[in-house]
């Protein structure tokens, strides 16, 4: 059984935002909700590095640990999904998440947040696979079609890798060998409890 993971190669990321718009396009994510975004450190000075970040689909997901209604579940592929019918929009998962992944569609100062929305690894949700209802609520289910997330498939420099963790690690290791540099597996320790 595959264990799906994301890896963003900070040596290759050029902050082009293809992953962001690919996600918007594929899942019709509304304005103001960002399932994925690109973060740049040391912007404009030597040492500038960019990393594309979304839900990392953690092994022991902190969001699931804090959710009061237990709406999260992990698929056989290791993808962390949630049930919007159960979600009460409390926002605990947002505080628990080390990657800032959970998003909420409403932003009034004192209002409710609405149902949480986040990256699904393009694997839809708990409704029937590929049904129109699934798309409306969770977006695309590429995994059910045998494809990988649109963000990684369209990454301009192949910085963002997605897929079975072992294969991702193999691809990345080969690059590191070639470059003979230090690995920059940003976020892997936190998400999966270990490096490449």
């Amino acid at each position, binding site marked *: 059984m595959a264990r799906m993971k994301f890896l963003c190669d900070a*040596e*290759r990321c*050029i*902050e*082009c*935002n*293809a*992953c*962001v*718009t*690919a996600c*918007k*396009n*594929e899942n*019709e*994510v*509304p*304005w*103001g*909700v*960002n399932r994925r*975004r*690109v*973060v*740049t*450190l*040391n*912007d*404009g*000075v*030597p040492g*500038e*590095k*960019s990393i594309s*970040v979304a839900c990392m689909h953690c092994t022991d997901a902190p969001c699931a640990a804090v959710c009061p209604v237990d709406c999260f579940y992990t698929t056989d592929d290791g993808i962390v999904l949630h049930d919007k019918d159960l979600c009460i929009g409390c926002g605990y998962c947002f505080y628990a998440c080390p990657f*800032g992944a959970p998003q*909420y*569609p*409403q*932003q*009034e100062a004192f209002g409710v947040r*609405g149902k949480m*929305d986040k990256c699904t690894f393009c694997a839809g949700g708990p409704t029937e696979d*590929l*049904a*129109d209802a699934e*798309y*409306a609520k969770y977006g*695309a289910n590429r995994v059910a079609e045998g*494809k990988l997330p*649109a963000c990684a*498939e*369209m*990454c*301009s*420099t*192949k910085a963002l890798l997605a897929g079975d963790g072992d294969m991702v690690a193999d691809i990345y290791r080969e*690059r590191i060998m*070639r*470059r003979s540099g230090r690995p920059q597996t940003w976020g892997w320790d936190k998400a999966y409890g270990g490096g490449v």
Partner: protein
Amino acid sequence: MKLIKKNAGAEKGSGSVSSFPSVFYTEMDRRTFLRRTGLTAGAAVVGSAMAPGMMRRAHAVEGTHARKQGVPVEIRRSVCSHCSVGCGVVAEVQNGVWTGQEPDFDSPFNLGSHCAKGASLRDHGIGEKRVKYPMKLEGGRWRRISWDDAITEIGDKFLQIREESGPDSIWWCGSSKANNEGAYLQRKFVAFWGTNNIDHQARICHSTTVAGVANTWGYGAMTNSFNDIHNAKCMFFIGSNAAEAHPVSMQHILRAKENGAKMIVVDPRFTRTAAHADQHISIRSGTDVPFIWGMLWHIFENGWQDDEYIRQRVYGLNKVREEVARWTPDVVEDVTGVPEAQVRQAAQTMAENRPGTIVWCMGGTQHHIGNNNTRAYCILQLALGNIGVSGGGANIFRGHCNVQGATDVGPNCHTLPAYYGLSEGAWRHWSRVWDVDFDYIKSRFDDGQYDAGGGKMSHPMHIPGIPVSRWIDGVLEDPANQSQRDRTRAVFFQGHAVNSQSRGPDMKEAIEKLEMVVCSDPYPTHLAVMSERTDGVYLLPTCTQFEQRGSITASNRSIQWREKIVDPLFESKTDSQILYAFAQKFGFADEMFKNIAIEEDGLPSPEDTLREINRGTWTIGYTGQSPERLKLHLENKHTFDTTTLRAVGGPCDGDYYGLPWPCWGTPEMKHPGTHVLYDPSQPVKDGGLTFRARFGVEREGESLLADGSYSVDSELTDGYPEFTFGILRQLGWHTDLSREELEVIAGVAGINASELPSNIRTASSELLERMDGINWKTDLSGGIQRVAIDHGCAPFGNAKARCEVWQFPDPIPVHREPLYTPRYDLVAQYPTYDDVKASYRLPTRYGSVQAEDYSKDFPLVFTSGRLVEYEGGGEETRSNPWLAELQQEMFVEIHPADANDRGIQDGQTVWLDGPEGGSIKIQAMVTERVPRGTVWTPFHFGGHYQGEDLLDRYPEGTAPYVRGEACNTATTYGYDSVTQMQETKTTLCQIRAA
């Protein structure tokens, strides 16, 4: 309906309905900055209605654009319409609606990848911020009209102006966004209208490259390819920010880097590309020549040049050495600001890591000495022996998706398609291709005689038209000073953003002075709103490239075929449909479309149009790429190697992907295309080449032909001139020509086929001499090319590249200070040119502008560039919500020291004042990305003018989500001495708090 609430909101506020502050942003970066600046303005919008997310979600349930289960999916393949990398696009279409976009893993160019723009292309099929039907501005209000009325009203007015002032009083603008067929028809159309007053984006993008490079070694195009960069050992970027302008090229660049290639970036800014480089060098904007000469100083000093290569293949380097000798390290440091150690390190890295490639873009080209810059880059590469080798080359990244193709075969004011120029011979060649009488074409032109430059009088047919950089002067300049009968009285823009041209306030005045403004575009563009006109503006809804089929040329000269993804949206028509409608109105449709079938809805057949292009473009080898061959490549993309671009087996076996030009001879000849230009290590029949013999055979007693260098399998083992029938005859090769070829050659020479004897050997010498002048460029049979290549020779000859371009104002590139320079003390030593009375029909000022010192009142260097999310003038991309959300404010990057000196804080609103009176009100972004003394803005914004949001002037529902000041409202005068490229990369400004 989709996004309606959001649209309304976005149009009211600054466009921002931003999300929460993120936990990631521990430091200020560009996006945090933008998000914060957007927050206050956006808050009112967010609070005012349902959150936009809800609207979209509702739409996703009921809407017509979401993917539907159980509905059959058709796959259509196209090419991205943003930059020139040529990324393949795979569209999923259900019931005629573009419902999905998949990665094109088979494309050897992008291997499935996209940038932000490419990954959001589907919005072109579903977005609603389009001009939906023909409209005209009447009494300050936009009114819907029918296509018939639009064609009649515009046509009648144009005919009236033609009657009163001659055909030169309409100025036309074609497009680098059009496909090859549309661009070609734009050029052909104005020839039948009777003017050369047409131009397109290449003028303000790479015209100085095309002129400089073509005059150095033959063709003005990227010599290698993005993929070939895999073979480079060193990559030298100057004035190119590939990470934002050509993001997918970075995949190839970073692959090379991982293979050990060194990467040097020369740019005033620490760009996103520089962030990946081994060495970043910040030069003062506009000092490219001194910097390159500074590198060459070290190269010559240390003997790092490739002497044998220079001896065989380079002319005139000694004169360069004399100029370079003046640029000692201390002088270079004084002028460019770069210390000797950095210059030397760059030179040594290039010298020790060969082959190395040089990449440049608009940072190098957009200067009043742009042609000097581009030639200096070429000379650097020639000295190192880096041209004509895999992994080397001048990899000039072009801008728009088809700017290469539009330059090659499209709407240029200074040449007919395929760089034939405007001589009588050129017109006669194209008249033959078009199957019309030369005298008919001539009769369409104004019959006067005007100053073609330097006081030489000529017929308007032979005088380059007004370029896009100067169209405003065609309106504003006294007609007595123009080389044509009258001033420009009306303009017709098809696919061009006017906010990309300098001198905004002058442009506003020009637009207001015109009698009619026609804008044929998918979007209203800045042109429709920037003036205070209340009448006489027409908007014609025009298709994007995804609503039509046709061919397109990527930066590396590869031609790809686009399938139509969706039918034209709303009432849109394609470029060529619109041109056909006007040709009918003007009465030359039958002549113009004689050999081009007209399909349903008045669509000129793209296949027929391409075949006509094939029949005429012998100079650059656009002749072998028939629609059938291009479609075969489309079907078999996966069979091409991603480094060599060559098909390995399969139906395209041996071809290079997209048959990069020159693809010699007829399609039947099956030439594979030329991946790497001027590479003698391959036979010409397999894509090898020599340098072109374009500048004669000798100069001042010295041979210009190659010395001992020739391509593999060449039967001529030394330099040789370009091929003519006469040369073939001298070599005895003319007997290889087939009967059909001979008849065509005779026909071009005006000889009837019946006069030719059945055996050419028995022809009289008098007859043969009449055919001697027909050459590889004018032989419509392709026979001369075929025979030359059969003997292993390049049809265009085998010469040396030249470092001295004796026809140009500066034969050897020299430094001249920008017209608006921060170093006025250097003007005496490096002055600009004297004013010119007639260049491209207009007086052009140099010395009289530089005569005044502006550097005291405007001490900051002002330069501009790209953002990855937007393209060109930005109307299209700012109308795409997925992109617009990522960049919501026009801004200026300013160094902390300059900001503190002016009491400006990050995020504050400021005025940027230009020395010619234009001012723009924008946000300050304080960052060390720019050096002290230089400020930078993106150039994609429009829809604001000198502090005012022009939202009310857009037709309802067409305003882009994001609007902002056009940087060119504040840019200034300055044009290249050869091509009229605008000097937008170096001017001056002052910044003050708003």
